[in-house]
């Protein structure tokens, strides 16, 4: 017996056994039933995927936001010796960068990476550079000033810079004069320290000073101080 014969015999046997349904009876019974309305399909996988993506998005956004919040530049510390430096401090108290405010300072800044160091470490590096290169001696005038958005955090960073300056000078036994510009100023965008700005404002307030603001901004702290001293002496004579 061949395979095809077996298949044929199976088919014939099946058809012989198969009961025939009474179609009218079937239709009558079916008519008594009502087709079930299809439920709206909720694609669970899609829903889970969408929710997970939303959660990942929220977590990513909050992570980025918190990250940018803490690393946002908030406090600006200024060291004016000529060279002059602007230390940019993040909200988390770490240094973001040190900006050179003149050419001499640019040389100092180029050799170091200040990002994420503490205010004390940065100030220490700057003072060491100034001392090693002969900018600080017993007769030096150091101006420290600060600008920032948040007074508490700015004061905190400013105090650290003042303490570091005092500790450095004591360590080297130097009698340099440290001028602290009190109060927290608002940050200006012309790369001029609050201490220098204060001197410029005083000179401009003088009668017949003969200098334009642009000229004054280009002068060093020593030159500005000299102009003010000359004016003082003039007044005394008068």
């Amino acid at each position, binding site marked *: 017996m061949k*395979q095809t014969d*077996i298949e044929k015999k199976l088919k014939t046997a099946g058809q012989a*056994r198969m009961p025939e349904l009474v179609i009218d009876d*079937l239709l009558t019974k079916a008519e008594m039933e009502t087709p*079930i309305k299809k439920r709206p399909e909720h694609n669970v996988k899609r829903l889970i995927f969408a929710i997970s993506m939303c959660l990942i998005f929220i977590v990513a956004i909050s992570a980025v936001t918190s990250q940018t919040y803490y690393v946002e530049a908030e406090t600006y510390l200024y060291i004016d010796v000529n060279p002059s430096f602007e230390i940019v401090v993040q909200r988390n108290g770490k240094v973001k960068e040190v900006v050179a405010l003149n050419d001499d300072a640019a040389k100092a800044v180029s050799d170091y990476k200040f990002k994420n160091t503490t205010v004390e470490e940065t100030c220490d590096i700057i003072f060491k550079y100034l001392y090693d290169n002969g900018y600080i001696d017993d007769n030096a005038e150091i101006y420290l000033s600060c600008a920032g958005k948040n007074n508490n955090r700015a004061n905190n960073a400013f105090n650290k810079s003042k303490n570091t300056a005092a500790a450095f000078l004591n360590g080297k036994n130097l009698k340099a004069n440290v001028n602290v510009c009190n109060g927290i100023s608002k940050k200006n965008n012309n790369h001029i320290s609050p201490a220098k700005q204060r001197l410029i404002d005083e000179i401009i307030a003088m009668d017949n000073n003969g200098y334009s603001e642009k000229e004054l901004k280009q002068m060093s702290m020593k030159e500005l101080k000299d102009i003010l001293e000359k004016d003082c002496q003039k007044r005394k004579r008068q």
Partner: protein
Amino acid sequence: MDLESLMKTLKDGDIQALAEIYKLTKNSVYASVFSILRSDNMVEDIMQETYIKVYKNINSYTPQGHPKAWICRIAKNIALDNCRKFNRTVPIENYENILKSPDSFRNDDKDTYNDIIDLAQKVLNDTELQIVLMFTVGDLSHSEIAKVLDKPHATVRWIYHSSIKKIRKYIIDNKVEL
């Protein structure tokens, strides 16, 4: 009119389409039901229940090119439910266990065979019998059987051919006259 169009017509509310669907699928439904029950008892009732259920659930049918497989799956599930009803005292893991229970509808201890289906019941196991009957009696393709039984297409083909060889060998070895 092909089966897919008839399913659509039924979905649209024309109950007369059910009669046409019955004519086109009765072989497949019979093969699906019989291969599980292994007896002609209740086959008619289950077939009728199958078509009523097809009408009842027509809205959940989505055209995917295998309407016959969908109907046979319904038939298979009803047949399995019936087996469970009559074997409630037997713990049910799957229908193969049910069919192997002493109270099942099997009659594979026969020495004489009314026809080749009787012989196939004796020689083949449950899956083999299902595949052979669905293909020969039910006119289902291997891929449709694979859909109904949730088995890979290649496995279904392989089981089918080995089952036919088994029947042939049994007939030759035992010199069975049919």
